[in-house]
């Protein structure tokens, strides 16, 4: 895995004629986890989408280096009629990558999804579904993870699994940015509070 680096300078976003944030500058590099915190509506999602170039930034620059991005938004992008494994598999192929069987099985295992792997996602519980989306990210060979409230709907055990997976990703030199209301006490984690 090549390491990724992100440099953001003086970023501003407006939505509906209102300033969400401006003058935002920070940088993140491989092995680091940036937690975006802040009240509801402070702009975490807006920032994440801008970083992924899914959303429009109104000023400033976003420079990625050597990044291959995996995305998890508020909406998980899972297809209810496909099974857990199919969803993960198809997501990898869409990223233009041949799915790595072993990685996928490992990701499924770390989110305790092995037993559910051939169930259509439609029949999953909310937390099981969120875990599927997380497993999709973990299974990807991407080095930069952008996660919007990954802890949503997870039970305690799964939250622990997610921390473990994140730690492993960082240890392997990966970079992650996560919007969250849960405090992330992890080595390598910093936090950026929006709307403060």
């Amino acid at each position, binding site marked *: 895995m090549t390491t990724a680096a992100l440099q953001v300078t003086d970023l501003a976003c407006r939505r509906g004629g209102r300033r969400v944030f401006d003058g935002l500058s920070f940088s993140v590099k491989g092995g680091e986890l940036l937690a975006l915190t802040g009240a509801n509506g402070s702009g975490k999602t807006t920032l994440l989408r801008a970083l*992924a170039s*899914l*959303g*429009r930034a109104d000023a400033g620059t976003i420079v990625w280096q050597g990044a*291959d*991005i995996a*995305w998890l*938004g*508020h*909406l*998980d*992008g*899972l*297809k*209810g*009629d*496909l099974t857990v494994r*199919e969803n993960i598999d*198809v*997501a990898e*192929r*869409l*990223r*233009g990558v*041949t799915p790595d069987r072993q990685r996928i099985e490992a990701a499924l295992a770390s989110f305790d999804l092995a037993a559910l792997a051939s169930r*259509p996602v439609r029949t999953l519980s909310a937390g099981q579904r969120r875990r599927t989306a997380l497993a999709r990210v973990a299974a990807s060979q991407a080095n930069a993870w952008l996660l919007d409230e990954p802890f949503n709907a997870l039970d305690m055990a799964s939250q622990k699994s997610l921390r473990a997976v994140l730690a492993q990703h960082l240890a392997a030199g990966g970079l992650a940015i996560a919007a969250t209301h849960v405090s992330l006490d992890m080595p390598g984690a910093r936090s950026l509070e929006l709307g403060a």
Partner: protein
Amino acid sequence: MTAFAALFRRDLRLVLRRPGDVVVVLAFFVVATTLFPLGIGPESNLLARIAGGVLWAAALFAALLSLERLFASDYEDGALDLLLLAPGALELAVLAKCASHWIVTGLPLALLAPLLGVAFGLDGQSLAAVALTLLVGTPTLSLIGGLAAALTLGARKSGALLALLALPLCVPTVIFGTGAIEAIATGEGFGVHLAILAALALMALATLPWGIAAALRLAGE
């Protein structure tokens, strides 16, 4: 290319797992076309004369009927974000989606049309013309409808708006499609019409994916 195939197969699989949407479209096609013989009465040479127009108009409506959801479900469940982020060209992804849409609507319509044509009293050559023109022409409808669907993502009244945008752009295709059947009746071949339909399809193929991709990027913002 693998991404293209993956998306194509994903969409096909999704449709097969939930055949209701396609079935409704085909049912509409049958009901809409059978409606005309009923209205006009059994005067067969009149029926045969309007058959081409009716089949094409019904095919146009049917294609648009299903196109509304082409990108909407991906938009609503967040899968569009994954598409937009994929490193492959969005233009190709768009093509894959339109192709899979065509496979489940345009293709069945083209196959079904000769059967309905029999009910209109069309002769063998005309039946072939109906099937062939629909086969060559419906991809254009799928692409144009795809553009309209992408443009109206997240818009209010998207259904009617989609039809409003797409119908005018489909006019040339429909004209030449029905023209082919006309031409047979005058004893000419329909080769020219088929060639122009193919030209229209290729033009759509070369240009519209760019527009659709641009529209989808807008929708993601």
